[in-house]
C-alpha cells in the first residue's frame, strides 16, 4: 500500500544516496516549500468551492455549476481573474505596510503548517512544543490584519482591524485553554505524541464530558480566531462593507481570501488532531473485524476526512447564524467561554491526576 510516509522515506533515501547531508537538507527544504505552496493553492481552491457549494445548498441554490463538472474549476477561473486585475494601492495608504500586510498574513498561515501531522509519520517538523508553537504563531495573524486596516487609510478598514484585534486577542485565551485540557491528558506538547496517545480511543470519546466541552469551546474559539461568521466582525459586510480589506483588490485581496481558508484548514486540522485523533482510524473497543477494516483506510484520508468535517461544521455555522455585535462578542468570551473553559481545565486536571482517562 502506498502511503505518504513511504513516499517521503523513498525520496529521503534516494537523496541521501546521491547527495551529502547538507544538500539533501536543502533540497528537502525546497521540496517542502513547493509542496506547502501547492497544498495552499489546492486547499484554497477546494475550500472556496466547497464553501460555495455548502452555502448554495443551504440557500436552496445550485452554486457554481458552469466551469467544469459541478463547477469545480470555478474557483480557478476566479483566481485567474483576480490575478489579471489591477492591484490598486490607494493614495492615502501607507504603501509599504499596505503591500506587506497580505504577505504577512499568508506567511503566518504557512508557518503553522509545519507541525501538523498529515498522515502517519508524515510531518514537516515534529517539534516537541508543537501545540505551543501553533498557538504562538497563529496569534501573529492579527498583526497582519491590523496592519492592513491601519495602512489602508480607510475608516471602515480601521474599525474592522480594531475589532479584529480585540476579538483575536481575547479568543486566543479560551482556544489556548481548551487546547491545554488535552495537553493535560496527554502530558505532551508534541503533536505526534498527542496523536499516538489516542490509539486506544479519541480524546473526545475517552476524555469524558470535559473533553466534549473543550471541543465545543475550541470550535467556537477557532471560528472566532479565523474571523468567520458569526464572528466575522472584522469584515462585517453589512456594517463595514468589507472591513479590514475594503481597499484591497486583485491578488492582494486574493491573498487575504486564501489566508482565511488556510487558517480554517489549520485550526480544523489542530482540532482534528487534538480531539478526533488526527490520522488515527476509528476503533471501537475490541470489535476486531471493524477495527481492521478501519485500519485499511489510509491515515491521510482519516486526517483529511476529520478536518473536512470540522471545516464543514464551521461553514455550517456561517450560513446559519447572524453576526454578533462587538460587545456581545467580548461578553461571550469573557463571561461564558473563559470561565467555563477554566473550570473545565480544572476538572480535566483532576481527571488526569486520578487517571480516569486511561
Amino acid at each position, binding site marked *: 500500500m502506498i502511503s505518504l510516509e513511504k513516499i517521503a522515506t523513498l525520496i529521503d533515501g534516494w537523496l541521501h544516496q546521491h547527495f551529502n547531508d547538507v544538500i539533501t537538507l536543502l533540497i528537502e527544504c525546497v521540496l517542502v516549500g513547493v509542496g506547502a505552496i501547492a497544498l495552499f493553492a489546492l486547499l484554497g481552491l477546494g475550500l472556496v468551492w466547497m464553501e460555495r457549494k455548502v452555502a448554495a445548498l*443551504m440557500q*436552496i441554490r445550485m452554486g457554481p455549476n458552469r466551469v467544469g463538472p459541478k463547477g469545480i474549476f470555478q474557483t480557478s477561473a476566479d483566481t485567474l481573474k483576480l490575478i489579471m486585475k489591477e492591484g490598486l494601492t490607494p493614495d492615502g495608504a501607507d504603501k509599504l505596510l499596505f503591500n506587506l500586510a497580505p504577505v504577512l498574513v499568508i506567511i503566518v498561515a504557512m508557518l503553522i503548517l509545519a507541525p501538523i501531522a498529515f498522515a502517519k509519520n508524515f510531518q514537516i517538523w515534529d517539534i516537541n512544543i508543537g501545540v505551543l508553537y501553533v498557538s504562538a504563531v497563529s496569534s501573529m495573524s492579527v498583526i497582519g490584519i491590523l496592519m492592513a486596516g491601519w495602512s489602508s487609510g480607510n475608516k471602515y478598514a480601521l474599525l474592522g482591524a480594531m475589532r479584529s484585534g480585540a476579538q483575536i486577542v481575547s479568543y486566543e485565551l479560551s482556544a489556548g485553554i481548551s487546547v491545554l485540557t488535552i495537553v493535560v491528558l496527554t502530558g505532551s506538547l508534541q503533536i505526534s505524541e498527542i496523536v499516538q496517545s489516542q490509539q486506544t480511543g479519541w480524546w473526545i470519546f475517552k476524555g469524558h464530558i470535559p473533553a466534549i466541552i473543550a471541543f465545543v469551546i475550541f470550535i467556537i474559539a477557532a471560528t472566532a480566531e479565523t474571523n468567520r461568521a458569526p464572528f466575522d466582525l472584522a469584515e462585517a459586510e*453589512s456594517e463595514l462593507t468589507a472591513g479590514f480589506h475594503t481597499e484591497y483588490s486583485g491578488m492582494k485581496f486574493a491573498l487575504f481570501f486564501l489566508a482565511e481558508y488556510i487558517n480554517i484548514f489549520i485550526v480544523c486540522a489542530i482540532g482534528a488532531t487534538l480531539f478526533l485523533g488526527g490520522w488515527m482510524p476509528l476503533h471501537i473497543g475490541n470489535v476486531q473485524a471493524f477495527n481492521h477494516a478501519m485500519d485499511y483506510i489510509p491515515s491521510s484520508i482519516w486526517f483529511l476526512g476529520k478536518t473536512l468535517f470540522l471545516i464543514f461544521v464551521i461553514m455550517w455555522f456561517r450560513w446559519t*447564524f447572524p453576526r454578533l455585535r*462587538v460587545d456581545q462578542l467580548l461578553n461571550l468570551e469573557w463571561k461564558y467561554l473563559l470561565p467555563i473553559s477554566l473550570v473545565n481545565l480544572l476538572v480535566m486536571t483532576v481527571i488526569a491526576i486520578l487517571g480516569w482517562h486511561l
Partner: protein
Amino acid sequence: MFRQTEIINQPSTIPPSKEEGEYLTINVGPQHPATHGVLHLVITLSGETIINIEPHLGYIHRSIEKMCESLSYRQFIYVTSRMDYLSSHINNHACALVVEKGLQVEVPQRAQYIRVIMDELTRIASHSLWWGAMAMDLGAFTPFFHAFREREAINEIMEETCGARLTMNYMVPGGVMVDLHPNFQQKTKALIQAYYNRLDEWDELVTGNIIFQNRMKGVGMLSAENAISYGCTGPVARGSGVSCDVRKIYPYEIYNQLQFDEILETGCDSLARYNVRLKEIRQSLKIVEQLIDNIPEGEFQAKTKAVLKLPKGEFYQRVETARGELGVYIVSEGGTTPYRIKFRSPGFSNLSALNHMVKGSKIGDLIAAMGTLDLVIPDIDR
C-alpha cells in the same frame, strides 16, 4: 428672495468636538450593503459608539410630485408604483381611492374584494422580503434566499393576474384593470397553506436564535411618545405600542367587515418591531383566507368617463402600506391634472426617527435598528 448661505445653520445635534480627531465621521452609503439602496448616512462616531446620524437624501429623487402635476388622473397612478416599489399595489390603491373620492364613484364589490386581497398579498410579500433583508443585515445570509423563495410565489400570482411582478399598475379609478386570472383562487389558497409552514420555519431559523435575539433586544428604543412625535407609523409605531393601523382606525374598502387584529407590541425595541411584522404576515394571511372564497361575482370596474376631472377642492386619502401610513393629498383646480399632489410617505417620517433611536449605541445596532425601520429609499426620496 433670500440667499441660501444665510440659512445654512450648523446642525445643532452634533456636539462640539473637543479636539481635532476626537470623533470619526463615516459615510454609510450611498453605496453600502446595509442601506438597501442609495441612502446616505453621515455618522459621527466615538470609537464604535454613534454620536450623531445625519441622513442625506435625494440620490434617487425623481420629483414624482412634480411629475404628477402634468399627468392625468389615470396616468399618475402608474408612477406611484415606483415610490414604494415593495407595496406598489397599496400605493396604487391609495391613488385610486383618492380619485374615486373626488369623482364620487362607487366601486363594485368584486373590485373591492380583489383590491383588498392584492393589498394583503403585497403586504405579505413586502414583509417577507424585509425579513430576509433584516436577517442579512445581521449577517445571516440564508434567510434571505428563503424569503425570496416565498416572495417569488406571490410574485408569480401577481404576474399571472396583473401582468407585472413589481410595478403592477393594476388599480384604476373605479376598480381594477382586468379581472382575476382563473387560476388565482386555487394558487392563492395553496400559497396560504404553504406560508403558515414557512413562517414556522422562519421562527426556527431566525426568531428563536439566541444571537438574533440578543442583537435585537433593547436596540433602537423608540418610546410611544417619540413615535407619535416623529410621525412614525406602521410596524415601527406599533412596535412601540401606538395604535395606528389605518385599516382599523379609518377603514377603507371592506376592511371594516373583516376579522383581523391590529398587532401591538410594547417592547419599543427592534425585536418588538420584528415581532409585529411577523405577526402581521399571519394576520394578512387570515384576511386573504377570509376573502378568497367569497369574492362576489359582478363587474370588476365601475364605468367611468374617458377623461377624468376632479372637482375643485382638496382630497386626502390614507392607506396602510407595508411600511405604515401613506397619505395622498391632492389639490384639484377642476382640471384633468392635479394642481398639487403630495405623498406623505411612511418611510420619510420613520427615517427621521433613526437618529433618535440609535444615538449612543454601536454601529451594529444602527444596522439592526435601520433594518427594522424597513426603509425603501424610493419611498423616502419620491
